C-alpha cells in the first residue's frame, strides 16, 4: 500500500507534460491539417526565392542559404502529390532537423507548407494508428492520427518523410 502511494508522489512532478502529451506544430496543406513534432522545428521563414538544383525531382524546389549552410527546400504539396498551388503571402518554410541514413546524419531541411495553424498537445493514448488503405495510398510518413478541435490531424514522421534515399530513390 505504502509503495503505491510513494510511486504516485514520485510521478506527480511530471504530470503537466505527461498529461498534456507531446507538442506538435500544425500546418495546413491543401485543406488538410498536419502536425510535426515541435522539437524538430528549427525556425519558420517566409517563402523566398531559392536556387534550383538541376536534375532533381519537382518537389525539391532548390537550396537556400541559411546562415551559411546550404539547405534544400522541399514542397510538401508536391511531395504528397497534392494539387499544386502558387505561393502566397502566408506560404511558410518550416526548417526542420532530420535524422537520416544509417549513420543518423543530422540534416537541416526546409519544407514549404500553405500556412502555420497552431501548436497542439497530443497524448500518446490519444494518437490513433494510421489506418491501412492498401496499396492505393502510401501512408508510411504518417505516424498517427490525432484529433484537434474536431479536425483530423495527421502526425508526420519527419525522418521517413524527408529521408534522402526515400525521396530520391
Amino acid at each position, binding site marked *: 500500500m505504502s509503495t503505491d502511494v510513494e510511486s504516485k508522489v514520485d510521478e506527480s512532478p511530471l504530470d503537466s507534460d505527461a498529461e498534456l502529451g507531446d507538442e506538435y506544430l500544425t500546418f495546413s496543406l491543401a485543406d488538410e491539417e498536419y502536425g510535426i513534432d515541435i522539437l524538430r522545428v528549427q525556425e519558420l521563414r517566409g517563402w523566398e*526565392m*531559392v*536556387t*534550383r*538544383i*538541376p*536534375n*532533381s525531382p519537382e518537389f525539391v524546389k*532548390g*537550396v*537556400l*542559404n541559411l546562415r*551559411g*549552410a*546550404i*539547405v*534544400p527546400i522541399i514542397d510538401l504539396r508536391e511531395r504528397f502529390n497534392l494539387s499544386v498551388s502558387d505561393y502566397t503571402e502566408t506560404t511558410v518554410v518550416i526548417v526542420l532537423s532530420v535524422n537520416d541514413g544509417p549513420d543518423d546524419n543530422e*540534416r*537541416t*531541411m526546409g519544407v514549404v507548407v500553405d500556412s502555420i495553424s497552431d501548436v497542439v498537445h497530443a497524448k500518446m493514448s490519444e494518437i490513433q494508428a494510421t489506418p491501412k488503405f492498401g496499396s492505393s495510398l502510401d501512408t508510411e510518413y504518417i505516424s498517427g492520427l490525432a484529433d484537434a478541435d474536431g479536425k483530423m490531424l495527421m502526425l508526420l514522421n519527419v525522418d521517413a518523410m524527408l529521408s*534522402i534515399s526515400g525521396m*530520391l530513390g
Partner: protein
Amino acid sequence: MSIDMEQFHQVFFEESFEGLDIMETGLLNLDNGEADDEEINTIFRAAHSIKGGSGTFGFQSIADFTHIMETLLDEVRDGIRELTHDGINVLLKSVDCLRMMMTAESDGGDIDDSEVKTNFDALQNILGSSDSPSDNSTAEVADTTSDVPSAWKISFSPHKNFMQFGNDPARIIKELATMGQLTGHVDTKNVPDFVDLNPENMFLSWDMELKGNVTKEQIDDVFSWVEDESDISITALSKNKEKTQNTAKKSQDTKIKAAASQAPVKSAAADKKEKSAPANSSIRVGINKIDDLINMVGELVITQSMLSMLGEDFNMTRLEKLQEGLIQLDRHTRELQESVMQIRMVPISFTFSRFPRMVRDLSEKLDKKIQLVMHGENTELDKTVIEKIGDPLVHLVRNSIDHGIEMPEDRIAAGKPETGTIQLNAFHRGGNIVIEITDDGKGIDKDVIYNKGVEKGLVEAGSKLSDQQIYDLLFNPGFSTATEITDVSGRGVGMDVVKKNIMSLGGAIETHSVKGQGSIFSIRLPLTLAILDGQSVTVGADNYIIPLVSIVESVQPKKEQLNMVAGKGETYKLRDEYLPILRICDLFNIPDAKADKLEDGLLVVVEADGKHFGVFVDDLLGQQQVVIKSLESNYKRIEGISGATILGDGSVALILDVPGLIRMSD
C-alpha cells in the same frame, strides 16, 4: 595553489608522438647506413624528452620504459655499443610499444602489459648481452643506491618574485617531507616591517636536513620547476669522502640530464599558456606564417582607417582616392585570405613519413627486397586532405609491395635488378596536386583482370573495354586477383575504399601499367577544399560558378566555326581543334535558357582530363573567389555539381564540376 596538470597532457602527447616519429625516422636512417652521430643524438634527445615529460606528468610506466631505451641509446651514442640490424628492430618495436602505451594513456584505454614486458625484456637482453661492464640500467640503480648518503642538506632561498610565478614553497616542502625525515628552520631575517610588507613577495628562506633513502635526482625533481626562481643548494651529509666525490660527479651528470629534460617540458608549458583552450585537433604553424598574417592585418587596418577618413568628408573630387582605396582593400583582403589558407597547408611529408617504416617491415615479412624513393615531400596540401589521403596511400603502397614487386629470384630471372623500387611522387599540376605511386614490379595483367571481371559478373563476356576501364575494375568492391590471400593485402577490400576516399575529396585516381615493367597509380587531388577562384556564368535564371583553373578561354562562337557531327553532336572549331560542345541547359534540363542558337550565347572552353570542351552558357558575369559549401551535408551529391557557394547578395550559386559534366555528356 596547485596547477592542473591535465591541461598540459594534450601538448605532452602531441610532442611525444612527434618525438616517436622522429625516433622512428632516425632509426630507419640508421638502418640504411645513412646516419651520422647527429642522427643518434636526435633519437636520443627525442627519447629523453619523452622520458622527462612522462615522468613529470606522472606516466610512470612510460617513463620507465623510455628510460631503458634511453640507456641503450646512450651507450650507442657514447660509442660503447654498435647498433645492429636486430638492435634497430628491437628499438623500432619499442617505439611501437611506446606509441601503444601513449595512445592508451591519452585515450584512456588499457596498456597491453604483456607487450610492454616483451619489449622491455628484449631491450634488457641487448643491454645484458654486451661485454661492456656497464649494464647500465641496473648498474645505475645499484650505484645510486649505494651512493645515497643517509642525509642531505638543502638550502632553499626563493627569489623575491618567487610567488609571482605561481609557485608555492609550502608545496615543495611538503613534497620533501614525504621523501624522508625532514627537519629544518626558516630564516625570517629578510622579512620587512609590516607596513613595508608586500604580501606577493617572498622574504623567507629555508635550511633543511632530509634524512632517508633519497637520491639527489629525486630532490632535484622536486625543485625542477622552481630552480630559475630560487637559489638551491643540495649537499650530501656523508662521512665517506670518496663516496661524496663520486656522488658529486654523478650528481653533476644528473644535473645536466635534468636540465636537458626540463627544457622541452618548459617550452611545452609555455606553448600551452598561449593556447587557452586545448582544441581537439591542432595544427603547428611556422612563426613566419603568423608574422605574415600580422603584417597583412596591419595593412588592412591602415587601409580601413584611410577609407573611413575619406568617408567622413567625401565629395566627388576625391572619387579617385576612394577607388584607389577600395582596390587596396581588395588586394589586402585577398592576401590575407591566401595567408590564412596557407596556414591550413601542410607538407605531404606528414603522410609520406610513415612509408619508410612500412616498406621496411613489409618487405622483410615477405622476403622481398624493396627500396623506397620519395620525391616532393614538401608539396603542401590542405590539412583535411592530408588527413584523409593517408589510408588510401597506405593501401596502394601495400598493394605495390605485395602484388607489384616480385620475389628477388623472379626479378633476377626477369632480368631486373634484385631490389625493387617503389616511388612516391608528389607535385603540382594545374590546380591540382598529383601523387604518384610507381613500382617497377610485374605490372597489372589486363587479361587476368578482365577474366576476373567476367567471372564476377562485372563485365559482359566478349565486350571490349579500354585499358582504363579494365583498370577501373580493380576498384570494385570485393575484387581481388591475388591467387593467395595474405595478411598484407589480397582480400579485395581496400581498393574500393581507396577510390571512395579519393572521390570524396573531389579527386580522381588513374592507373597505368605495362605488364612486366610496373604500374603507376596516380591520384589527383584539389589543392584546397575550401576556396576557389570562379567564373560566374548564367544559364536561364540560374547562376553557376565554373572553377577558373579548368577554364582555358571564353569565346563568342561564329556560325562558320560550328559544325554538327552526324547531325547531332555539336562541335566548335577552335583554331585547329574541334571541340565537343556541352550545353548546360540540356544537361541540367533548364527550361528558361535565353540562348538557344549557339551564336547567341558564349562558349567557355574548359579542360579536363587533358581534353578540351566548350561549355555553352547564356552569359558571363564576373570572376570572384568563392567559398565552397557542401551540398551533401544537408542534401546529396548532384552529378555535374561539385558544391555550392553563397554570393555577395546572400543567394546560393552552384559550382560546376567540369570533369563530372563531361562524364554526364558521355
